[in-house]
């Protein structure tokens, strides 16, 4: 049995049935990380002690013949933007280089309560700001499918760890595509749930009206299992919705025949790589063969999504990141003589170039004289973008698109052109702005053997349908890695 390539159910069953132990499973993953991660760079911090304690707990449950919880003994990684009590959490930033959180993120706590073994913290773009993971203050991540390429971002470490068998599953975060785009680049499944579906308590905030936590996994079923674990109201996050959590795993088995899938021409225009187009169109054809009805829809404001996103997200970021001032935690510049100088110098030395760029853009668009022209304007266009989806979802059950206009690009290719980098998110930011759920599932490879992702977008709180479509595609037509 290759312990590193197991899915969630297979790993849990192996521990439950005593074919292996949670301890050997965890050790197999740490050893794999020790061997392969120096080339990939997915992990920033390992939490051996915490992992082995949890594994021992799961082993003693299994030894007593007790039923393991749904993630019992399953080794997982956590993107470094979710706080973990006693385990260094940096958000990929030097400003939090030595930060040891005094509490746990709710999503992480729920994973552990369901038996998951947390191996460590995964690399990401600084404060989740980026589309290639090259904005990590520590080191870039290399795409395990081709080490000369980026893994996508900002959850690049999470996608790479799952793709490289260095975690069974991972938690990532998605503000503009940061779960789905790296999942697509690395050939794994990535799910962004509905806004409010999963508590963000303990998620280091980037843009609060857009931030989501969700899973990156090897299979759609694993994504459903993780979502079932982390979803649901949390009194520590007032933005977590009071909506019942269905059994996403049971819902997977419902037939997809008769479902209406929308295809929007705006997602197949200029700028879409021809191999990606072919692969996604073929996937849509296969879903039609499975009995889905393909319906043309229009999302006319799509071309305004990126400019809207970069106003809204940076405005919120400039406010959220004001808390990093060198007073209560994080980096402090030692050479400052006044309080103002200390704030400024700490932020100057602590933040990287992209974070400063976004703070500046966000501060500018909120500043007196520019608020109406930029921030208010973007909020209004957001209403139009949401309206596009509301209209489309009157006609269809889900919408299928490419996840990203291209496959993984080369490291260094876009670092000097922030606008080109922002455009990598063109098909993913819309769902964040509208608050709807989206999943990326592998749907083929380019001639250079790079993974391509199919994105399925759903109605608010209807993760069941997009998971079901993704599962049907994966089981009937999916490409095995």
């Amino acid at each position, binding site marked *: 049995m290759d312990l590193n390539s197991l899915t969630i159910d297979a790993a849990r069953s192996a521990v439950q049935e005593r074919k292996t132990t949670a301890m050997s499973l965890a050790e197999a993953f740490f050893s794999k990380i020790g061997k392969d991660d120096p080339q990939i760079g997915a992990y920033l911090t390992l939490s051996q002690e915490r992992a082995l304690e949890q594994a021992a707990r799961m082993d003693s449950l299994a030894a007593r013949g007790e039923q393991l919880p749904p993630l019992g003994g399953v080794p997982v990684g956590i993107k470094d933007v979710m706080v973990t009590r006693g385990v260094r959490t940096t958000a990929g930033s030097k400003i939090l280089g*030595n930060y040891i959180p*005094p*509490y746990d993120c709710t999503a992480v706590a729920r994973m552990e309560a369901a038996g998951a073994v947390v191996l460590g913290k995964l690399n990401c773009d600084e404060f989740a700001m980026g589309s290639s993971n090259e904005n990590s203050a520590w080191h870039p991540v290399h795409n395990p499918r081709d080490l000369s390429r980026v893994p996508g971002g900002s959850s690049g470490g999470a996608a790479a760890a799952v793709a490289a068998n260095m975690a069974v599953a991972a938690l990532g975060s998605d503000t503009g595509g940061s779960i789905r785009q790296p999942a697509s680049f690395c050939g794994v499944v990535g799910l962004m749930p509905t*806004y*409010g579906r999963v508590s963000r308590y303990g998620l280091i905030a980037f843009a*609060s*009206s857009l931030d989501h936590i969700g899973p990156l996994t090897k299979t759609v079923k694993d994504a459903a299992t993780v979502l079932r674990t982390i979803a649901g*109201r949390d009194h520590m996050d*007032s*933005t977590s*919705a*009071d909506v019942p959590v269905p059994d996403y795993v049971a819902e997977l088995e419902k037939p997809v025949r008769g479902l209406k899938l929308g295809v929007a021409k*705006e997602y197949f*225009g*200029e*700028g879409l790589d021809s191999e990606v187009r072919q692969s996604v169109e073929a996937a849509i054809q296969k879903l039609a063969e499975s009995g889905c009805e393909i319906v043309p829809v229009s999302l006319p404001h*799509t*071309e*305004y999504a990126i*400019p*809207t996103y970069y*106003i809204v997200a940076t405005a919120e970021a*400039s406010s959220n990141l*004001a808390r990093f*001032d*060198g*007073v*209560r*935690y*994080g*980096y*402090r510049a030692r050479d*400052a*003589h*006044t309080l103002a*100088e200390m*704030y*400024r110098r700490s932020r*100057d030395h602590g933040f990287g170039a992209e974070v*400063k*760029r976004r*703070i*500046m*853009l966000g*501060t*500018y668009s909120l*500043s007196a004289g520019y608020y109406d022209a*930029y921030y208010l*304007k*973007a*909020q209004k266009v957001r*209403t*139009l973008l949401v309206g596009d989806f509301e209209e489309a979802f009157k006609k269809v059950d889900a919408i299928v698109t490419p996840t990203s206009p291209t496959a993984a690009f080369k490291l260094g290719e876009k670092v000097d052109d*922030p*606008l080109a980098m*922002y455009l990598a998110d063109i098909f993913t930011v819309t769902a964040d702005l*509208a*608050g709807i759920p989206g999943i990326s599932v592998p749907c083929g490879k380019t001639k250079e053997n790079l993974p391509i992702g199919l994105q399925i977008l759903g109605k*608010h*709180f209807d993760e069941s349908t997009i998971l079901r479509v993704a599962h049907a595609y994966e089981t009937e037509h999916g490409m095995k890695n």
Partner: protein
Amino acid sequence: MRGRKSGQESRRDTKMKVTEKDVAYVADLANLELTEKERCVLLRDLNSILDYIDRLNQLDTTDVPPMAQVSDRYGVDQSQTGSARFAYAGRDDVHEGLRKSLPHEVALQNAPDSDGTFFKVPKVIER
């Protein structure tokens, strides 16, 4: 879409939107110092990004209401209005009294400088 050309794209003001003075002013608001080199790069980047963002002005949004976030539209009881819509968000622990704070020493654990009771910062008041 990225490639779609638009005739209305406003190129009428060829002058830069953001000047060096603006960069300095905004950096001040954002509590950033920035080196001379960073200011130059930001001047270029902000102008290029804002030029792109200009395409929002192609849309007439006069009668469109702004949206700050989506959670008052979905996943809430639509028959309720105002704060009643979010009655569920009232925290049990607050209803019953304040939640316990972090213990003092835990709260100070990550402090860059502390005297054991307070966070220490450079002198604020000159005397």
